[in-house]
């Protein structure tokens, strides 16, 4: 055992320090210190993000239990950026009556799930992977139920924990079969032992279905809309970008590195899943009235696009995936930033409440419009570029029909994104949301997101830089 092995876990260790620091601060800070919890947490986490921004060398620790590669560091950094933006938007969580004195919990629970995702990403063994997964899920259920006096929030927590437990069960069943047929749980040893016999395919299917639950792909998506609607908006934002992005990346790494021999099987499975996810989620999204449910279905369909990058099995596919996650973080969090700003002041969450928003809140509507355009893939915003690259990655491997279906679906999705734009800019309302000023942190987050949406596509080096770290099968 070499202690320098710990250095590979630089991201995890520094995050752990942040968590412990916030825990202690929560204990010792008096009423006055509590007031500054948000800035303290943001600064601490920003230091952590900056400290880990340069990818660390590739290597393994603890006999292959823990793996690190520069790409994984890049993904962790991207998740950090997402989490940082979420924290900037978090003020409204503490405006809830029952939250005034419990600021700390929100932060260290969120960061614990992030730590779980880190371990999930860097795991080199199914056991560590599973621990990471649970660490990411269980605090998440608590977060979903954070609003104690809201029945819907409690319901969301219960739904999340039940479906998480169920999917973990299915996944563990799959893992046990993989162990049974190969005799090992180490990712390094597995590829040569997986020979595509019937039992292994069965095990693989159970395992991957568990992951699909986490990513919430159709037909394993039924928990998503209710949980998204019930959770505090900030938690929903976190759930929809950070949690989803990490799960899809883990899926990609596992499919490439561990189940490479089953490529025919998983390409077939993904093919079907992508089509149903994108199409069904789009069709449901059209009919949503509540903006959080609407974004829930939109995020299911976006997850379908994310997996579209995976199906190619190439390094380029991974590049496009990670780039897509980055752009998705900016776009979706811009939308959630606006939603939480409006929800905090007015408690309004229906799309029809947004009618005439432009006349009273031009800046917020403008940001929301950019977010919708970026999500819908309209140039010159970043979403167009990320979608184009995803399609090119799949087309490169000859999935033309799939690409065509996906592209036509972007038109359907454009329809419902435009409905929001229409409500804000075109529809008139007798009783529009009054002009409101959102808090400084949220404004900063919206500035970051807007900048990201505007420049992440035009500046090509971001995507090319990601491309230098990515790896294929």
């Amino acid at each position, binding site marked *: 055992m070499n202690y320098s092995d710990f250095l590979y876990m630089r991201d995890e260790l520094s995050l752990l320090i942040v968590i412990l620091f916030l825990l202690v601060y929560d204990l010792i800070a008096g009423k006055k210190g509590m007031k500054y919890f948000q800035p303290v947490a943001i600064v601490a986490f920003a230091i952590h993000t900056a400290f880990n921004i340069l990818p660390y060398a590739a290597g393994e620790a603890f006999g292959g239990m823990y793996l690190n590669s520069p790409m994984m560091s890049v993904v962790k950094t991207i998740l950090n950026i997402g989490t940082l933006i979420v924290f900037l938007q978090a003020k409204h969580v503490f405006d809830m009556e029952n939250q005034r004195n419990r600021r700390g919990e929100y932060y260290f629970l969120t960061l614990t799930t992030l730590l779980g995702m880190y371990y999930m990403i860097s795991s080199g063994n199914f056991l560590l992977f599973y621990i990471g997964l649970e660490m990411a899920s269980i605090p998440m259920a608590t977060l979903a139920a954070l609003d104690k006096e809201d029945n819907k929030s409690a319901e969301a927590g219960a739904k999340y924990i039940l479906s998480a437990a169920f999917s973990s069960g299915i996944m563990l069943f799959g893992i046990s079969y993989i162990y049974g047929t190969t005799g090992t749980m180490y990712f390094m040893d597995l590829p040569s032992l997986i020979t595509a016999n019937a039992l292994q395919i069965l095990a693989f299917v159970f395992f991957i279905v568990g992951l699909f639950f986490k990513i919430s792909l159709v037909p394993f998506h039924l928990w998503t809309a209710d949980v998204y609607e019930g959770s505090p908006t900030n938690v929903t934002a976190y759930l929809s970008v950070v949690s989803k992005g990490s799960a899809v990346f883990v899926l990609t790494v596992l499919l490439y590195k561990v189940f490479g021999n089953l490529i025919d099987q998983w390409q077939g499975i993904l093919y079907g899943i992508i089509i149903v996810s994108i199409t069904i989620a789009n069709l449901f999204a059209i009919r949503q009235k509540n903006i959080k449910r609407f974004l829930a279905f939109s995020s299911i369909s976006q997850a379908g696009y994310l997996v579209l990058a995976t199906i190619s099995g190439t390094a380029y596919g991974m590049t496009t995936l990670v780039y897509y996650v980055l752009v998705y973080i900016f776009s979706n969090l811009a939308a959630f930033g606006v939603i939480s700003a409006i929800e905090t002041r007015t408690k309004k969450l229906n799309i029809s409440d947004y009618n005439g928003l432009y006349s009273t809140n031009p800046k917020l509507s403008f940001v929301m419009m950019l977010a919708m355009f970026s999500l819908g893939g309209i*140039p010159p915003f970043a979403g167009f570029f990320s979608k184009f690259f995803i399609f090119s990655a799949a087309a490169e491997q000859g999935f033309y029909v799939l690409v065509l279906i996906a592209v036509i679906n972007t038109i359907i999705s*454009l329809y419902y994104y435009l409905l929001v734009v229409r409500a804000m800019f075109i529809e008139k309302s007798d009783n529009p949301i009054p002009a409101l000023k959102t808090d400084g942190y949220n404004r900063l987050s919206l500035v970051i997101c807007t900048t990201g949406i505007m420049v992440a596509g035009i500046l090509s080096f971001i995507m090319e830089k990601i491309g230098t770290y990515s790896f294929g099968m």
Partner: protein
Amino acid sequence: MNFLSIFVLIPVLMIIALFIARNRKQVLGVMVTGSTLLVIMAVYLTVSYITDRAAGATGPMLYTASMMWYEPLNIHYSVGVDGISVAMLCLSAIIVFTGTFTSWKMEPLTKEFFLWFCLLSIGVFGFFIATDLFTMFMFYEVALIPMFLLIGIWGSGRKEYSAMKLTLMLMGASAFLLVGILGIYFSSGATTMNILELVKIHIPVQQQYLFFVLTFFGFGVLGALFPFHTWSPDGHASAPTAVSMLHAGVLMKLGGYGAFRVSIYLMPEAAHDISWIFLIMTGIGVVYGAFSAIHQTDLKYINAYSSVSHCNLVLFAILMLNQTAMTGAVLQMLSHGLMTALFFALIGMIYGRTHTRLITEMGGLMKVMPFLGVSFVIGGLASLGLPGLSGFVAEMTIFFGAFEHPDMFHRVLTIASTMSIVITAVYILRMVGKFLYGPMQDKHHAALTDAVWYEKIAVVTLIAFIIAIGSLPLGLSDMIRSSLTDVIAQLVR
């Protein structure tokens, strides 16, 4: 930095300036300065293009420049122009210029209106200078999306429906285009998106068929390809004046230009073999559009259907695949762009005064507003192809070219489409007769005023160009014709 990029840079700077602008006066100042600069640039480009060609500059495109953008896909920001793009750039600059003046009294949200207007023109100018498939596609989509808000916010009538229909149909068509572009890139064995390099690589014929259909359909829908033209009448009728002008005048030309630049240029064999499918569609479109225009009573609908007919004629001429007809197609794009912009501008001005667009509710307006009336008649005569005006030159060239095909199929189609000239005469003369001449339908109309200075600037500019093309077409058609040599060389390969 290549000087062609200035065409994109000017609207970008205009957008930034508009953000800063504090009041209406400044907004208009920015718009007038910017669009005048664009016109000056366009004239300068034309002059220097013709002199450079005369001085012996060869190569399919001039002023080419290329900058690596996305390395993994070998995407470049690459620009270049030939005679056809020069003509299109001039047209766009003129329409943006006149569009600014026709929306002088735009209310409410003046600033926002011009913001979207400038974004639209970024897309248009960028599209015409781009020589890289990705860049081209990006600018194409940039030009589409502002339409949604422009129609939705400032439109009239069933504006929400029209805006949504237009956006979704055009975006839907661009989906096919996207797949076609990816297909050209990946399965042709080429590792470039640059059109000028792609053309040197012979795309396998079997694949050409698929890509030809995908790209031609993608661009064709924007060029109002029958039966996918239905977005156009609704969209144009609901849009505010300047947007109708820019959309019918320039944006629909993106379809024709793209079909020509991508589908025909890169897939010549497929164009030869399966152009007949699209020829039938466009042939029907030409006649159908003209017939539909007869039945309309709303001025904007009449002009919108007339646009459908004329734009189908552009595609029809392109698909004839010979030099004369294609020259005619480009001339028709120019001529129709100016003509339809003039029409929409005049309709907007008349509607602003009478508050109705139904010809049954108007009459005798020639006496009240002689300037607008005469301009309308000039536009009408250009549309029905009176010699001396631009429409005649264009349509004549097209039908001459089309008649060069000796076989039965082409002959029949050509003769059928020629009929559209007669039908055009019917609806134009009927329309002019109904609402400009005859007894006055509404007593209040007698008190209306004629055009004011900013309206006159727009109208006079457009008419001047229509007459210029009509009476001195040779320099222009030489410029276009010589640029077509390269395309024709591909076709007879």
